[in-house]
């Protein structure tokens, strides 16, 4: 599982599921992304941190095909990819759980899990939803993750925040995905539910999933991630192994109090920490 021995200075062709080089994106005159560079080692949790407006969400949206970058390169398993819409991103194995919980309130759990990928049966133009199959599979997907398993036929509107996030995570993890991107997965949750979701993320990693975790919460990042990438003003400015950094350093990197001259080639060379050690 932990195949990604540290090779931080040069982008390794193997071991990284996803590599991003020099990604840029402007909206009109606003340069939302000036220079983003990032590797996601297989089976690890990479945290992406930064202040509001640092470009984290833009980066994620460029990765998965919501936005198209103006410049730069994204590779999945070494192959360059260009997504003109999120469907292509999903087809290539990038699943996202967006900040605003991309569930549709008035659809059922199963409908949400299968949204855009509904199972059908029939032939030619007469294809009808295979609800039985979807409900059965949906139950399987959700019960792997959720402790308090919601009924798959109930509307998402009736679920708790934690259950919703479990559904969103189950959807992201359930589709033979290569990378699961979590955009502020606990921003809208209470303490207990946050704990639940963090357990979910851990269990996803135990299943070998590669995860990009966008978060504001430094403690959470320290608890969950293997490496941390810091963004500031549209650039990826630093990278740290989680085991070799601390909350204070991250704060100063985010605010710009500590300038990182290079992409910190020294600290990673000395030790290749097991991602397991970072768990609290």
């Amino acid at each position, binding site marked *: 599982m932990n195949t990604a021995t540290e090779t931080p200075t040069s982008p390794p062709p193997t071991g990284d599921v996803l590599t991003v080089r020099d990604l840029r994106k402007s909206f009109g005159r606003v340069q939302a992304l000036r220079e983003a560079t990032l590797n996601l080692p297989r089976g690890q949790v990479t945290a992406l941190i930064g202040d509001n407006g640092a470009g984290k969400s833009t980066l994620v949206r460029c990765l*998965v095909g*919501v936005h198209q970058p103006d410049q730069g390169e994204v590779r999945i398993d070494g192959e360059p990819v260009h997504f003109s*819409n*999120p*469907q*292509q*991103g*999903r087809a290539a194995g990038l699943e*996202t759980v*967006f900040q*605003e919980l*991309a*569930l*549709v*309130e*008035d*659809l*059922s759990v199963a*409908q949400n899990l299968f*949204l*855009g990928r*509904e199972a*059908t049966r029939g032939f030619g133009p007469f*294809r*009808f*939803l295979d*609800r*039985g199959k979807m*409900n059965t599979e949906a*139950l399987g997907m959700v*019960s792997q993750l959720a402790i*308090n*398993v*919601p*009924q*798959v*036929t109930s509307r998402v509107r009736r679920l708790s925040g934690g259950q919703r996030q479990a559904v969103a995570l189950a959807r992201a993890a359930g589709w033979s995905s290569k990378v699961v991107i979590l955009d502020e997965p606990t921003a809208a949750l209470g303490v207990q539910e946050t704990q639940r979701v963090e357990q979910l993320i851990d269990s996803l990693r135990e299943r070998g999933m590669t995860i990009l975790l966008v978060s504001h919460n430094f403690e959470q990042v320290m608890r969950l991630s293997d490496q941390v990438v810091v963004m500031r003003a549209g650039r990826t400015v630093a990278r740290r192994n989680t085991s070799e950094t601390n909350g204070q350093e991250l704060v100063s990197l985010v605010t710009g109090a500590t300038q990182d001259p290079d992409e910190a080639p020294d600290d990673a060379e000395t030790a290749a920490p097991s991602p397991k050690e970072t768990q609290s």
Partner: protein
Amino acid sequence: MATTHPAPAAPASTADSGRRKLSELPWPELASTLGLIALAVIFAIANPGYLSEGNVSAILQAAAILIVLTVGQTFVVATGGIDLSVASTMTLGAIVLGEFYALGWNIWFAALAGLVAAILVGVLNGLVISKGGITDFIVTLGTLSAASGLALIISDGKKTTVIEPVLIKLSVNGVWLFSWAVVMALGLAVIAHVVLFHTRFGVHVLAIGGSAESSRSLGIRVWLVKTGVYVISAGLAGIAALLVVARVGAAEPAANTSFLLNSVAAVVLGGVSLFGGRATIVAPVMGAILLTALVNGLTRVGLSEFYQPLTVGVVVVLAAFLTRFNR
């Protein structure tokens, strides 16, 4: 409209399931049916002939056109949009039908021409709204005017008499209480129900109404689905055009404004959220029948027809309140 799948891993204990069930009933969706029953009881007491076979059949016959338009409107409203052009599109369809009929075309081919004209309006609506990014309200307000204007230009403001035995049979013959026009309207409603709840397109319609942004992020082609619902609405208006010609016996460039208002009213009565995302077909159809039954009943008890729009308005707003309190 509750789903009837067996509930695996039901979390609810049986003790309070009885009480919970009552509050979990989909009241907004039931409102139009319950309202219709209440209305039937009240008018039956006030006017014994109200529930006679002849009158029920007449109500249904009078409701057929509205049912067809309401089904189309439901699809649009389910995506969070609104189609103000349905009635004008129907008028345009009827006029095109009349013109081709006057040229000596077979009635069915003429009807097909009317349908095509209506669908073109729908394509225009859909593309301008979804690709052009202009508010549905404005776009369909524009086509409301444009389509009825076009109908006036094509017809030169005159009606074309369409006397065709087949069309007369459509209104007169049928099965038991249901004339063929009613059978057609209800058949379309059944198809619409299947499309909305048993196809991918239907799920995407509701998903877009619930959250267009989420749907887009999951790769649903929002513009295509949006265009689709306006085409459905206009297509059904094109079919309604045939029914309107059959009923009037002519293609008239009339404004038919009440059809527009009533189609929206029926959708609201049917508990469809005007913000989109939540809809059924059965309930708006019941709403369309309710509105027709209300007008019929008011006429039968001898209330001046001037009171009818007022009553309809009050009923619709009351229904909207009911929807609001059950969210």
